[in-house]
């Protein structure tokens, strides 16, 4: 096989056994790789109603056919499992260096089943594969654990591991790789913790073979040249990282402010990219071989918030900054470091604190339960809350359950700004209607990564569309969800793919991506067959949700988005007209009115047995 190794590593943690499996080429092509292969395995081998933190759950690390190839940004992996936060499927994406090194072990996927009797880590150096004791690492933060794991294995190896948050089964625990990068969303780190799996260390030299090496090289050179010319002309992503975004979303009136009570933050200048660059940036940091380099290596000298690490990115500035009413960038950056060291998803962690702040101010969560005042704008209360969340100490037990369970415990679930119990990312959908439909329908809950129409509604990529209309949004979201499934399955980064590999004239048809997939795999994809594969992946994930008990009633948004008009700014007076978009969306998807894929649709996608 080309692009794909066609080999899967299966680790039974209960019995401490390791087996390998080769892959049927037809299944490889039909499900692309990464997120696609992983849902196929998950769907066929586990009961979707199983408790996500029980040994019956499977945890899958998945690279794609373009991971570790010359494809620009071909360096992503996905973590796929059942989420303990949402009860739905989880597919969390990360870059850095780990994904390329994982692929170079000679395996495309690692599948973990069962639960180890004691803490362990997995060491994979091509054929040298060992489950090793990790008792001495339990309780240690991500940075310390990573350093020790590299000392014990090979200094040039790469590590993905959990911190205290994952060990303590905090439902927003991330799996951190290369210390600072996160497969963050929907509690994948808690699943790893529930399996007593502290870390995965990878090393290898097995690059995947390419079907058409020359074609691939020439094509990748062209794209890289295009990116380089954009960077030279002044790329905001390169210059400021995603930290340039708060000013943009604030201008559109959709920057989450004080738990999404409004969409414009008076302190936005304090948490934006130019401030970050001026005060704390050491240098931009690229994922392996990425020409964009949107990551930020930063250092804070301020005595109170001293630290060094990576971030913050936009989502962190939004969830930990404006959503908590905090305009102190030193504190937000420090809070980001704490999340990275503890292994927390900054979005759900920040948004859970934001919800707690609003409920505290409303008198719905008493101070004696929390142990300290927790008002909007208090950076020290925020940082303390993140620490107790990760360790499940005191009120941290309640915070560690995420905003929905916390708000429901106090009798007011409507204060949780989440969909399928996953907290919103940094775009208030009252001013970006397509994002509202995306949050409501995404298979993993409110994620921007499931089909980020903000690119078009907010950022003008591949072209600018009106964010306030619902016209055409159902069709676009259907199309983008399928397209993002392709990107995730292929092992690429969305930043590059949407801008350089999709056709703006016909809104996101993957014409360049089809070519690069064929240069890599030789699998003779047409644009249609690739889009169908994306749709196949999306529908199989949906069937996992259906079998887990989800239906139309779960495809919804909090009352604040549906009933409370945006109070100020350019989106003033707007709510999300979800019902209108949703019924159109179901029809376009070929689902019945309850949101269940019809037998005809499943047959057409080759999923009749689902």
């Amino acid at each position, binding site marked *: 096989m080309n692009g794909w190794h066609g080999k899967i590593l299966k680790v039974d943690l209960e019995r401490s056994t390791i087996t390998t499996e080769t892959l049927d080429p037809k299944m490889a092509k039909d499900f692309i790789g990464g997120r696609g292969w992983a849902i196929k395995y998950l769907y066929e081998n586990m009961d979707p109603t199983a408790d996500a933190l029980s040994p019956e759950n499977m945890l899958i690390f998945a690279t794609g056919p373009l991971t570790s190839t010359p494809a620009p940004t071909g360096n992503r992996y996905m973590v796929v499992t059942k989420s303990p936060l949402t009860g739905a499927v989880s597919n969390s994406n990360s870059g850095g260096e780990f994904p390329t090194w994982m692929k170079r072990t000679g395996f495309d996927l690692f599948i973990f089943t069962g639960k180890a009797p004691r803490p362990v880590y997995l060491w994979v150096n091509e054929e040298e594969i060992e489950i090793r004791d990790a008792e001495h690492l339990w309780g240690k933060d991500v940075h310390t654990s990573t350093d020790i794991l590299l000392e014990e294995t090979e200094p040039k190896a790469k590590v993905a591991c959990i911190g205290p948050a994952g060990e303590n089964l905090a439902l927003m625990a991330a799996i951190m790789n290369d210390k600072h990068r996160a497969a963050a969303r929907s509690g994948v780190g808690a699943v790893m913790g529930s399996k007593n799996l502290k870390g995965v260390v990878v090393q290898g030299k097995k690059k995947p073979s390419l079907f058409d090496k020359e074609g691939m090289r020439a094509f990748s050179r062209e794209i890289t040249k295009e990116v380089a010319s*954009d960077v030279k002309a*002044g*790329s*905001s*992503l390169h*210059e*400021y990282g*995603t930290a*340039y*975004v708060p*000013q*943009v*979303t604030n*201008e*559109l*009136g959709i920057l989450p402010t004080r738990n999404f009570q409004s969409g414009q933050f008076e302190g936005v*200048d304090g948490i934006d*990219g*130019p401030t970050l660059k001026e005060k704390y940036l050491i240098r931009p940091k690229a994922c392996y071989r990425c020409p964009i380099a949107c990551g930020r290596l930063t250092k804070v000298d301020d005595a109170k918030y001293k630290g060094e690490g990576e971030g913050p*990115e*936009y*989502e962190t500035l*939004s969830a930990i900054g404006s959503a908590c009413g905090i305009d102190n960038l030193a504190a937000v950056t420090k809070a980001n470091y704490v999340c990275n060291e503890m292994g927390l998803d900054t979005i759900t962690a920040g948004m859970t604190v934001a919800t707690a702040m609003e409920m505290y101010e409303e008198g719905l969560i008493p101070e004696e339960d929390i142990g300290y005042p927790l008002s909007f704008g208090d950076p020290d209360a925020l940082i303390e809350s993140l620490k107790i969340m990760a360790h499940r100490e005191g009120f941290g037990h309640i915070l560690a359950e995420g905003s929905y369970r916390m708000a429901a415990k106090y009798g007011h679930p409507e204060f949780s700004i989440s969909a399928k119990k996953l907290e919103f*990312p*940094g*775009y208030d959908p009252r001013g970006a209607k397509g994002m509202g439909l995306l949050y409501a329908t995404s298979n993993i809950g409110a994620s*921007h990564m499931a089909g*980020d129409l*903000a*690119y078009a509604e*907010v*950022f*003008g*990529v591949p*072209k*600018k*569309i*009106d*964010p*306030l209309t619902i016209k055409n949004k159902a069709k676009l979201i259907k199309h983008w969800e399928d397209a993002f499934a392709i990107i995730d399955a292929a092992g690429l980064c*969305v*930043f*590059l793919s*949407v*801008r350089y590999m999709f056709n*703006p004239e016909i809104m996101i048809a993957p014409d360049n991506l089809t070519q690069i997939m064929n240069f890599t795999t030789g699998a003779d994809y047409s644009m249609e067959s690739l889009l169908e594969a994306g749709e196949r992946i999306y529908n199989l994930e949906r069937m996992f949700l259906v079998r887990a008990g989800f239906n139309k009633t779960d495809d919804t948004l909090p009352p604040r988005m549906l009933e409370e008009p945006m109070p100020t*700014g*350019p*989106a003033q007076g707007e709510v999300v007209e979800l019902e209108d978009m949703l019924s159109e969306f179901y029809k376009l998807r070929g689902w019945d009115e309850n949101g269940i894929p019809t037998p005809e649709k499943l047959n057409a996608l080759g999923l009749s047995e689902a």
Partner: protein
Amino acid sequence: MKITLKMLGTYREHLLPKGEKGILEVDVASGTTVGEVLEQFDIPLEHQSVILVNGRTLELDHVLNDNDVIAAFPAMAGG
């Protein structure tokens, strides 16, 4: 009449040296369009820019009103 220009991301540099922090207040004649103002500051008007007036997506031939805020930034994958 007075309008405010707000240049975001790397477009901040288009307003230097007068418009520090990417913000500049300018006088324009009544009847001036969004496109005419942006041309004066060399802001690309084609698909490579996102242009907003008072936070809303409007056409370049939109005629400006007193106190309007024009924001522009390079179209680029986001957060």
